[in-house]
């Protein structure tokens, strides 16, 4: 009994220590920084004689604009996650129906983009969406048939969403695929024997069983999108600023570390809330199953 407990401790200690050193401790530093005064030239003002202050939090709540940006980032993250589910689900389902040999190849293709640098892939979208290129011309010719004014694709909220979905799609496909792959075809046969049509078989059997995969994928997409700054920086237009850009701006352009710390603290809280929510949902499912 005792040795079992010891083993459990030994096994859980490394990840626990890891979380403590690389998550809890840095977060506490961020908390402390958010109550300090900004240094005259970046960094933090000396603790003596300036001390701690609530000024930064007052500044945050003094204008709805910062809350607006948080809401907008949540919306962009939710939209990207939704689109990723829409695109990834049929793809993952299709892959699981392929013969084994093809399946591995398809999964390889899904992860292949990781072989090239993230920024290069985003820059590639700049070229694809640029007004002089085929895609843009095709879209605008099509719109022209319906008498709609040509639209600018690059430097727009549309481009930001495209970039977000493109970069994070594999993070949705992979957990969904690993989930769907484990579904026993016999369950669907059983459902069919009981008189379920194709739609019912999907909606009553496959979909509920795949929810854990969706939750996992959603967490893997939603959380990074929420903090992303590079994509809106590169593909966004004049109004596409998200929390990530705002935080980056505080540490670079404005050199206001306490405000940057305050913003990232709120971001961390939201991420934790989302993670907790996802966990709760999948637990509930587990009980029902």
């Amino acid at each position: 009994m005792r040795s079992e407990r010891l083993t459990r401790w030994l096994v859980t200690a490394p990840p626990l220590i890891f979380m403590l050193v690389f998550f809890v401790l840095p977060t506490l530093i961020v908390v402390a920084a958010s109550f300090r005064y900004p240094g005259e030239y970046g960094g933090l003002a000396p603790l003596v004689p300036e001390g701690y202050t609530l000024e930064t939090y007052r500044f945050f709540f003094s204008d709805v604009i910062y809350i607006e940006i948080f809401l907008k980032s949540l919306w962009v993250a939710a939209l990207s996650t939704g689109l990723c589910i829409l695109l990834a689900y049929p793809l993952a389902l299709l892959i699981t129906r392929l013969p084994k040999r093809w399946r591995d190849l398809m999964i390889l293709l899904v992860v292949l983009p990781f072989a090239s640098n993230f920024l290069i892939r985003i820059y590639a979208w700049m070229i694809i969406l640029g007004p002089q290129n085929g895609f843009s011309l095709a879209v605008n010719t099509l719109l022209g048939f319906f008498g709609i004014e040509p639209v600018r694709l690059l430097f727009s909220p549309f481009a930001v969403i495209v970039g977000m979905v493109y970069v994070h799609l594999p993070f949705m496909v992979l957990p969904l695929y690993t989930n769907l792959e484990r579904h026993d075809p016999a369950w669907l046969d059983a459902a069919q024997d009981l008189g379920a049509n194709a739609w019912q078989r999907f909606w009553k059997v496959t979909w509920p069983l795949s929810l854990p995969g969706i939750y996992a994928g959603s967490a893997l997409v939603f959380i990074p999108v929420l903090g992303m700054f590079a994509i809106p920086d590169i593909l966004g237009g004049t109004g596409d600023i998200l929390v990530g850009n705002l935080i980056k701006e505080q540490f670079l352009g404005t050199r206001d570390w306490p405000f940057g710390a305050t913003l990232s603290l709120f971001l961390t809280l939201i991420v934790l809330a989302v993670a907790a929510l996802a966990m709760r949902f999948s637990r509930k499912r587990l009980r029902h199953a």
Partner: protein
Amino acid sequence: MKKSCTTEYTECTEEKHFKKLRVLRVLRGEMLFAFLLAALSFSAAARDELHLYNWNNYISDATIARFEQQCKCRVVQDYYSDNEEMLAKLAAGATGYDLIVPGGDAVEALIRSKQLRPLDKSKLPNLKNINPIYLNQRFDPGNRYSVPYAYTVTLIGYNVEKIRALGLPTDTWAVIFEPKYLAKVKGRVTVLDSQRELMAAALKYLGYSANDTDAAHWQQAKRLILRAKPYWAAFNASSYIKELTIGNIWLVHGYSNDMFQAAQDAEHAHRPFSIGYSTPKEGAVLALDSMVLHKSGPRPDLALQFINFMLDGKNSSELTNLIGSGNPNLAALPFIDPKIAANRAVFPDAEGFKKLEMFRALDRQQRRVLSRIWTEIKVR
């Protein structure tokens, strides 16, 4: 029932595994970085190396090679793409740089935070080559810490053929801010993604100083910017060079060095148009970059040698010929490509020079206020 539980279980471990992989990847990057830093500080102490922390593409390879030959040492370069990035890196504790080339307000910040070594001018006989109008600036009275290196002017760049065809003026900030002009180039304009630069352009257009910190004037500038914003394609400080070169963007607010590059690229690619640039008559911002010695550098002797080397006319001219930067060195003028030297946007006459302003550092309260205005500009 049991089966679905195991599915659940593998799902969970799968997810954790996945997360861990990502964490590991990030961590590996961090460790590599730490290792490199350690390696850097080790070798710096041991060998004859000059550690130069400079802007991207801000010195000619030929110049470096000649200096290495002369000093029998090696020049190790590290790069930044804006002052803020450099200051942030130093604030986060980066060390080992002998020589840095910051802009004026960054020099001021570095001096006030006591990060610089005073210069031993007896080692800098070539200092006499510098045009006195670039010496004794407010960010460093008496040049105790800094020696001018090169400068850029923030101005208007344009697609010559397009702008001429549309009949737009190119000698005023109005073309960037006035809807009556902007309506003709809607979606073909970018402005710099920089709080201070854009604010300065607006302030200049309104007839104020680029360093004006009056809250009412800032609000007025904000309204001007918000009125023009719907016509702009993006806030952009990097890819606008390329967009201008390939003809997607026709009018930009940007740096003279970048315009020089865009003009050159368009010419080399045989585009059916050319890129021009000019300083608005209301005045503009001049960013003077200076060489300074960082206290953390182990080899101030090599750094001083390098500064004196760069103050030589020929050596200094190579940078201007390479990237079209402004040159504060009088002895460099005979070596500079006559086409560049004749460009009034880069080498202004006495009258034009009076209208150029250098940035002063803002205090933390002003930075916070400006940052909020900037956020409003971006969101609204």
